């Protein structure tokens, strides 16, 4: 029983080591196109991770996550405007705090209720933030805002790597290696029982939501400085949320490595799609179809196909006997 587990641990440590080495040396050997690609992959992996915290771990589906990304972007942009002139790094925590406050305002009344309330509330929040950004003057309206230009791709690669890796570390420690993770999962699996264990379910859910709101805000700030121009369409577009949903579902909901797999695979697939078909709205159809297919046929995501995964065994044990009457796939 313990031997295969240890072997698995060793092999995953080796994989982790290789990935870490590749990421840390990337700027020294990758071309500028690949470096930009990697920065974007990191961005999406980080965003997918944040969505996985609230959806996969806390069990509440958020359709407005991109609002936090946009909030982070706008806070950084506004604070770096010529008249204000803050240091870039000082703007990131501000964005995080604003996102946390808004998350609390949305989460507090709705996380007590069943998931649909929260789903719609977050959706409406994203629409509201977008409308606000489009009409308000401080955000530059639909024209958007321009940031000071810093054309140093390596700098942004390091920033994005630090933010995403940092977020990963924090989430891994909190959700997989601490009591907080047990609380979150217990509340997700059975709320009345969790309360009967002394767990303050509402508090735990709000903490998880705030954690998952802070990450996109920081990433949004970095991204805004990188692309130097933001507007509601680029930073608050609903398609961004759609993309997050599908990335996490494809990767593996509630699994710590799901977002890495889903984020990487889907971002690269999207780039390929753009190369082949141009920037078409047909991509939205594709995203929707992927969500439907994953929900129907691979609800545990690509992670469940990794050899030796507990989920794969779970699927085998509990779904197979019913497979003749249900899916017949996976």
């Amino acid at each position: 029983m313990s031997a295969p587990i240890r072997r698995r641990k060793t092999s995953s440590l080796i994989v982790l080591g290789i990935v870490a080495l590749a990421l840390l040396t990337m700027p020294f050997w990758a071309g500028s196109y690949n470096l930009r690609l990697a920065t974007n992959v990191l961005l999406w992996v980080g965003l997918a991770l944040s969505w996985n915290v609230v959806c996969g771990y806390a069990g509440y589906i958020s359709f407005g996550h991109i609002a936090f990304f946009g909030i982070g972007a706008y806070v950084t942009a506004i604070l770096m405007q010529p008249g204000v002139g803050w240091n870039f790094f000082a703007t990131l925590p501000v964005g995080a705090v604003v996102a946390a406050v808004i998350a609390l305002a949305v989460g507090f009344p709705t996380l007590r209720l069943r998931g649909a309330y929260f789903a719609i509330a977050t959706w409406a929040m994203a629409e509201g933030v977008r409308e606000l950004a489009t009409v308000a003057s401080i955000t530059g309206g639909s024209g958007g805002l321009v940031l000071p230009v810093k054309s140093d791709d390596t700098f942004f690669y390091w920033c994005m790597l630090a933010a995403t890796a940092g977020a990963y570390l924090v989430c891994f420690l909190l959700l997989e290696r601490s009591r907080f993770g047990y609380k979150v999962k217990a509340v997700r699996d059975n709320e009345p029982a969790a309360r009967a264990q002394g767990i303050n379910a509402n508090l735990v859910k709000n903490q998880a939501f705030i954690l998952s709101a802070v990450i996109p805000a920081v990433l949004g700030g970095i991204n805004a400085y990188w692309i130097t121009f933001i507007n509601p369409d680029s930073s608050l577009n609903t398609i961004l949320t759609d993309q997050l949903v599908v990335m996490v579902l494809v990767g593996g909901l509630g699994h710590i490595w799901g977002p890495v797999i889903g984020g990487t695979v889907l971002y690269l697939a999207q780039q390929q799609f753009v190369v082949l078909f141009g920037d078409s709205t047909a991509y939205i159809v594709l995203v929707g179809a992927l969500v439907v297919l994953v929900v129907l046929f691979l609800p545990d995501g690509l992670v469940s196909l990794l050899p030796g995964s507990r989920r794969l065994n779970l699927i085998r044990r509990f779904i197979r006997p019913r497979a003749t009457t249900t899916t017949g796939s996976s």
Partner: protein
Amino acid sequence: MELFASIVGGLLIGGLYVAISLGFSVAFGVLDVVDLAVGMWVVMGAYAAVVVQDWLDVDPLLLLPLYFLFFALVGAVLAPLIYRVRNNRYAMPALMGLALTFGFATIFRGSLLTGFGYTPRTVRTGLANTSWNIFGLVLPAERVAGFLTAAVLTLAFAWFLYFTRSGLAVRAVAQSKENAGLMGVDVKRTSTLIYALYTGLTAMCGAVMGAIYAMTPELGPRYTLFAFFVVVLAGLGSIWGVLVTGLLLGVLQSLVSTFWSADYTLLVVFLSLFVVLLLLPNGIGNRRSVA
């Protein structure tokens, strides 16, 4: 007078919200999944009417039953999928159900955007320039027609629920799937039936709505929020509640656009919903939490 006219105009629109929300609420009760595609059914109904007016030389409102049949058929195809996801043994079926209907909504939105682009479209009917003056109150014919359509549909739907055997089965399943199943109700078939009825009904309302307001594929989430607003305020399974709050939403929307700006409708609706949830945490709707 302006206030009075605005309220009446709002009530007329509200009729459509009542019809949409009623089907949405019942389908929610039976399938136990909030259909996040509800707004897209509205939008797709409107675009069906747009297609009809582009291709055929008839008034798009004359073909309402056709939209019903077509979208009921689509709904009947999708319903078993929702049922299967909601009732299988994977982790978090409630959440997966939401994700599934979200996937549907995304497919619909992407298809409409690809087919019709971002340009707003309006359903043009023979009633477009007609209006009636009743005691100094100007009633646009399209709104009146919309209200009448909604009233007929709502009554028909209520009759189905309360005076037919299938309606009884629907109400039984909404109360308790297990017990209804034990009583010999085919839960899966009932779910399919109600979902098909609801999608057909919603699309018909959408076609009428398209004559009153311009539509874009991006408006789906807005109508989803509206339907949800009505159902949350009304309480689950309450027909009278839906009637009152649906009309209320119409009036609210009308007042906001008359005295402020139509741009703020969504924000006002959202904030009202927020306040309601804050003040009545156990919602209205006392069913236990699922997702």
